[in-house]
């Protein structure tokens, strides 16, 4: 069995139940056995975090309403977002909490971005999304690294120690951006430019998260 074949069946693996062929491969391949051990550790951590990171039903409702108004989805079930083709490749169950946060952030960005061009109803949804946005992506009050980000950085460091410092510095920079943009929006809630800064700042952070997750994967 090759690494590629093993990784193809990886999503179907349950606990410690492996076939003889898989066991033999794991004995011989330090890369795949390391991956399995990392996934177990992350999975255990993720289970503990899942309750905290799951966005409230309010978040899903707001996303679903706005996306339906945009004509982007027809299915009234918000969770359909997670079964879309875009997520078909997300094979690792342990990534779900992270995925949820990213998808919620991205979808809300989409909602807010389209506000100026859409109806008053959509504007109301976007306005009501503002506090939800905070819940969904966990805004920090300053440029400090929060606990989730620290965990992400440790994950990166476990795979590529040299990259950790760079990611930390980038996260601090984008968190400072978010802090300034949030202040600006608070002071000028109707300022389209201030809102644009905030959306761009979130886009930056989403990119850093996404790239860190990708680098953390073997």
């Amino acid at each position, binding site marked *: 069995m090759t*690494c*590629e074949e093993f990784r193809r069946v990886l999503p179907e693996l349950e606990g410690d139940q492996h076939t003889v062929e898989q066991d033999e491969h794991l004995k011989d391949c*330090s*890369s795949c056995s*390391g991956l399995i051990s990392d996934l177990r550790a992350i999975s255990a951590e993720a289970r503990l975090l899942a309750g905290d990171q799951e966005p409230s039903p309010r978040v899903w409702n707001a996303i679903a309403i706005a996306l339906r108004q945009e004509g982007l989805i027809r299915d009234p079930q918000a969770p359909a977002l997670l079964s879309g083709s875009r997520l078909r490749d997300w094979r690792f169950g342990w990534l779900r909490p992270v995925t949820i946060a990213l998808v919620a952030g991205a979808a809300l960005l989409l909602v807010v971005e389209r506000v100026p061009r859409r109806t008053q109803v959509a504007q109301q949804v976007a306005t009501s999304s503002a506090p939800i946005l905070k819940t969904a992506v966990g805004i920090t009050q300053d440029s400090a690294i929060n606990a989730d980000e620290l965990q992400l950085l440790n994950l990166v460091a476990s795979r*590529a120690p*040299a*990259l950790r410092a*760079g*990611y930390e*510095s*980038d996260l601090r*920079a*984008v968190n*400072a*951006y978010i802090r*300034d*943009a949030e202040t*600006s929006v608070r002071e000028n809630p109707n*300022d*389209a*430019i201030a809102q*644009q*800064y905030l959306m*761009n*700042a979130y*886009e*930056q952070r989403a*990119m*850093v998260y996404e*790239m860190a997750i990708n*680098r953390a994967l*073997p």
Partner: protein
Amino acid sequence: MQRRQRVAKLVVGVFLAGTVVAAAETHQEFRFRVHRRASVSVANQFGPIWVKPSSGKEVIVTAVLHSDKVEVDHTHSFNRVSIVSHLLSGADAESGRVEYQVLVPADANVTLISATGPLRAERLHGDVILEGNTANVDVRDLSGGHVHIKTLNGPVTLTNVTDGHVEITSVGGDVALNAVNGPLIHVNSTSGRIVYDGDFGGGGEYSLMTHTGDIEATAPSYASIDVMASSTQGKVENDFLLQPTHASFAAKAGTAFAGTMGKAASSVRLLSFSGKIHLKKR
């Protein structure tokens, strides 16, 4: 005589050293037949990727592996080619380094990912997606395709890119756009400097935004633009005589300006939270 011998020994030594280094490297070549608008992706943790157009309907990948701690995985299904540098146990930035040169049909859609780069794409017509951490990104002579670039701190340079959507997101990398135009040009940076030198042509929407970086945009006097520039905490400078226009913000002297030139075919937004903005006349 002794001097000649020393020189001869030195030459032999250099030759042998070169031979040892060359022996540690492995050259591999892969060829794949593809159809119109093929998708080609190359993911390389450490090392450069350079993509150029091929003459036929073939993808030719030349890889130079720096050690046996890395191997090249490749898949080819129908019209999709995927190349991945597979790091083996103990590989680091040097031993895991692979240098790729990839020839693709000019209409292929290309995705290149490398943490260290550099990444380079030239003379293509398909969509190009480039992603890197510190990778230096260099894109030139592209037309008709969308260009999406993401870097953390790697500088991005685009030269002669036309008629496509260009979207660049970089946390700290400087972004330089030379002769870049199209229906959508969007740059989003946290601390990088953004430099645009072109004519803002194509009746497009140009949005250059950064948190702390400076923005310098240079355009000719015949540019046809509806421009708006604002720096919340920094200064703005404008070399053009603009026709006043209704702006959604109060144009404060020194921190914001807005106006039109010519037929205002393209929309230009230059926004920096705390950096300086300068709209220069060429």
